[in-house]
């Protein structure tokens, strides 16, 4: 780390975009308008699986006010090609078919046509007039049913990858993967206690409060403007360019403020369709999803079936661990089973471990990334199993984890050897926390669970421009999803030696800043922060050069201290320090505008670990679980703005509690979603939760100028097991199936009573 003495980093200033967001002035996806804009709406399949025999839009097109209709026929029939512009690999062709169904509708809510009209009411009428003839096909919803030999096939050409010899018969299993270390069979022979269990999780939605929204305008010269809410304006640009076969230089995407994403806004749904409609009718087209569309047609994360087996000696040493993960990908290949496998045992230093993963398609919406994609599903199983095993050998669950914890030098099953990790520190902080000692009452219990996430780096661009009055602007390319503008401005202010109020950040459109990979993977404060820091450092070099010109001494004799150029060294001469503002004022005479720019592929990301303590009280009559107290410890490397770091942790915990207790996709026998609204898909509300204490542990990442690791994803990984383990502690009932909703918990309590009789 280059910066040890800090003035701005680590403080809690008001975020630069704050006032706009508390006064209603901030412009989110649906808030933008363009002159002459039309309303775009999607026609969606009512069937879970159906061949599209014919689409007749003639009646809709004849309706006054209807300006354009598009179907898959209006999109280029692009070949299979893997893309790495979103969070995780994506096949461009699949994405195209997901935006607009080609030949087959693969889930209820799959878009089959779209209309642009002068009003919302006319667009609705037009949708009803588009005649789609379907041939309904058998469907399959659940992951294990989809893997069955005789399951209805979604993609008749899908041959399972990763299997030797390569299969010749198609199936719904897109891919099999195995990660292995040591000799698991031998490890289990050495074990003195083994726990083996199957765990299941349901698909859950990111449930950002802002539905997807965009406005797109095509010009007759081939250029296009898009204003949309997403986790990456460059991601939108890349996908739209590919799906519509447009040159990237002809598309300018301006990022709106984003009303939550959590990974769910790392794909396109509306933008290519809105632009296709706009191209057809020559007017801007605005599209906004309804909440029902968000649930039915945008990505939740996978549901999964996870089998875990762990063996240990009586002294607590884990001798072997094994897991098999089956993840639903939705209608197209690409579940997060890969990271699910890799994260499953990444908390532990294991000699013998095997993880097998299956990526399985079924008639559900294509999954999208959701906060630490894949890790919460496998970790729920592993951390529940660890808890059971700790009890079996009579060890404290934190001590059991500490005994087997991954440390610097631990080789992970998925390849790397960990360095600069802070897992043990989180366990230690949890063990010492007063929460861990607090006495519990009747029907109350305490659960502990840990979690891991990689955190990533990647491509980021930033510019720092010094203004003529001595203030500065930071230009960056990552949508601010939870306060990252503040972090960017703070790092620049630290380097420049300016107060935070004199540094203003903007998130620029795709034509105004260099390429930046999307906001995801907990990368922005790490990678874009590194770019901003380097840009600011470059500006400081330039500022020192201008002082050198002014004083006529070598630049190497000038240091930058507290926002001022100062002569250093014996031969430098004695000059009063020159402030940034003084240098900026004279920049025209010393060489022109001053600034710095960095375009990097940030390397050296360090993984994050968290350990959570959860107290619950179970009402055995109703099956209702109350969260009494929650403490989340996490190593973040370095907290740039501690309030927003805590906020990420608290928010991740709340989502995890929802995943544990309430949230699930419920389908009827025809494969139709029964709960596509917030009344029936119940995310935690204010009265469901206590205060959530975030304990920030700082084991710095030496490869980042300020020690940053990343924070946003780890906190959603431990909660499901922490809650389930607490429920077991409270009433002695093990809950391996999520969500642990009141009816499900009641049934488990009844089963236990019946078994006891």
């Amino acid at each position, binding site marked *: 780390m280059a910066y040890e003495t800090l003035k701005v980093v680590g403080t*809690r200033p*008001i*975020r630069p*975009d*704050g*006032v706009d*967001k*508390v*006064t*209603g*002035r*901030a*412009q*989110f996806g*649906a*808030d933008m308008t363009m002159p002459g804009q039309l309303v775009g709406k999607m026609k969606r399949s009512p069937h879970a699986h159906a061949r599209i025999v014919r689409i007749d839009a003639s009646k809709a097109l004849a309706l006054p006010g209807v300006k354009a209709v598009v179907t898959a026929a209006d999109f280029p029939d692009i070949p299979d090609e893997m893309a790495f512009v979103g969070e995780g690999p994506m096949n461009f062709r699949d994405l195209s078919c997901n935006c607009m169904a080609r030949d087959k509708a693969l889930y209820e809510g799959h878009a089959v046509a779209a209309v642009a009209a002068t*009003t919302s*009411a006319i667009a609705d009428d037009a949708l009803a007039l588009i005649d789609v003839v379907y041939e309904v096909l058998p469907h399959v919803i659940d992951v294990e049913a989809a893997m069955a030999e005789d399951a209805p096939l979604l993609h008749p050409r899908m041959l399972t990858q990763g299997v030797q010899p390569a299969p010749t018969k198609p199936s719904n299993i897109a891919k099999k993967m195995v990660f292995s270390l040591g000799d698991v069979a031998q490890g289990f022979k050495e074990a003195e206690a083994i726990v083996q269990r199957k765990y299941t999780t349901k698909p859950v939605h*990111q*449930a*950002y*409060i*802002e*539905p997807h929204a965009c406005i797109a305008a095509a010009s007759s010269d081939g250029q296009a403007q898009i204003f949309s809410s997403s986790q990456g304006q460059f991601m939108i640009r890349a996908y739209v360019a590919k799906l519509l076969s447009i040159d990237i230089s002809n598309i300018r995407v301006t990022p709106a*403020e*984003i*009303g*939550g*994403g*959590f990974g769910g806004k790392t794909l396109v749904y509306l933008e290519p369709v809105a632009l296709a409609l706009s191209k057809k009718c020559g007017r801007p087209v605005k599209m*906004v999803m*309804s*909440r029902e569309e968000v649930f039915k047609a945008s990505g939740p994360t996978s549901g999964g079936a996870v089998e875990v087996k762990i063996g240990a000696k009586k002294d607590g040493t884990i001798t072997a661990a094994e897991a098999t993960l089956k993840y639903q990908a939705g209608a197209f290949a690409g579940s997060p089973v890969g990271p699910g496998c890799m994260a499953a045992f990444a908390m532990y230093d294991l000699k013998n471990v095997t993880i097998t993963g299956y990526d399985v398609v079924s008639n559900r919406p294509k999954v999208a990334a959701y906060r630490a994609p894949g890790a919460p599903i496998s970790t729920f199983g592993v951390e529940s199993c660890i808890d059971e095993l700790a009890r079996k050998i009579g060890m404290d669950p934190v001590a059991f984890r500490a005994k087997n914890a991954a440390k610097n030098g631990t080789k992970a099953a998925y390849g790397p050897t960990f360095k600069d990790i802070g897992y043990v520190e989180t366990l230690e902080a949890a063990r010492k926390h007063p929460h861990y000692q607090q006495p519990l009452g009747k029907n109350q219990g305490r659960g502990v669970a840990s979690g891991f996430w990689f955190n990533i780096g990647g491509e980021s661009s930033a510019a720092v421009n010094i203004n003529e009055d001595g203030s500065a602007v930071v230009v960056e390319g990552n949508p601010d*999803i*939870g*306060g990252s503008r503040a972090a960017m401005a703070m790092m620049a202010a630290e380097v420049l030696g300016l107060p935070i109020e004199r540094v203003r950040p903007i998130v620029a459109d795709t034509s105004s800043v260099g390429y930046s990979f999307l906001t995801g993977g907990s990368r922005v404060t790490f990678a874009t922060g590194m770019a901003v820091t380097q840009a600011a450092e470059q500006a400081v070099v330039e500022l020192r050069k201008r002082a050198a010109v002014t004083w006529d001494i070598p630049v190497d004799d000038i240091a930058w201290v507290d926002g001022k150029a100062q002569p250093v060294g014996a031969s430098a001469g004695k000059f009063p320090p020159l402030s940034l503002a003084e240098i900026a004022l004279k920049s025209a005479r010393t060489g022109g505008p001053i600034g710095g720019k960095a375009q990097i592929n940030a390397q050296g990301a360090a993984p994050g670990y968290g350990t959570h303590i959860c107290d619950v009280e179970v009402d055995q009559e109703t099956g209702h679980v109350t969260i009494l107290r929650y403490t989340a410890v996490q190593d973040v490397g370095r907290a740039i*703005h501690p*309030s*927003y770091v*805590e*906020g*990420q942790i*608290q*928010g*991740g*915990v*709340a*989502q995890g509690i929802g995943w544990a207790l309430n949230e699930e996709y419920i389908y009827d026998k025809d494969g139709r979603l029964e709960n596509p*609204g*917030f*009344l029936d898909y119940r*995310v*935690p*509300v*204010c*009265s*469901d*939760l206590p*205060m*959530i204490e975030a304990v920030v542990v700082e084991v710095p990442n030496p490869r980042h100028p300020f020690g940053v690791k990343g924070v946003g994803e780890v906190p959603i990984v431990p909660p499901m097991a922490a809650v389930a383990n607490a429920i077991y502690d409270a009433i002695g009932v093990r809950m391996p199936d999520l969500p642990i909703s009141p009816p499900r918990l009641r049934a488990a309590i009844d089963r236990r009573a019946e078994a006891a009789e």
Partner: protein
Amino acid sequence: MSKHHVSATVNGEPVEFLCEPQETLLDVLRDHLNLTGSKEGCGSGDCGACSVIVDGRLMCSCLMLGAEAEGRAIDTIESLAQGETLHPLQQRFLEHAALQCGFCTPGFLVAAKALLDRNPNPTESEARYWLAGNLCRCTGYDKIIRAVMDAAADLRK
């Protein structure tokens, strides 16, 4: 389909607008009056992002028709600050970092204002139940509740 002519008071100012019979108050605020601070998160009264105060009563503006606004006084997020001066709720939300994405924030602020207008000294539990009609997916509500409790204390001074 003929439009309704509606006269109402919005943020203290008399307004007139024409709206279609099926348009909600939220549609009118956003699309006709350019008051886009109120947000549509669900359209079914479940998320509270469109919260406004109608004749002193907290409402989801997505659940009220524009035509029903005739003769009523409506206050939106845009009227919470007095010119350059933020309301204590707004100030405390900023200080506590009680917003991440900021999309639910206008609704929370309006709902919290309605709470404090009626109960200047709420317990944490009362605040949590009052605000249970507003969904936030980013913060886990911790900092929101702290901000509301601190703003309540400010307003009691």
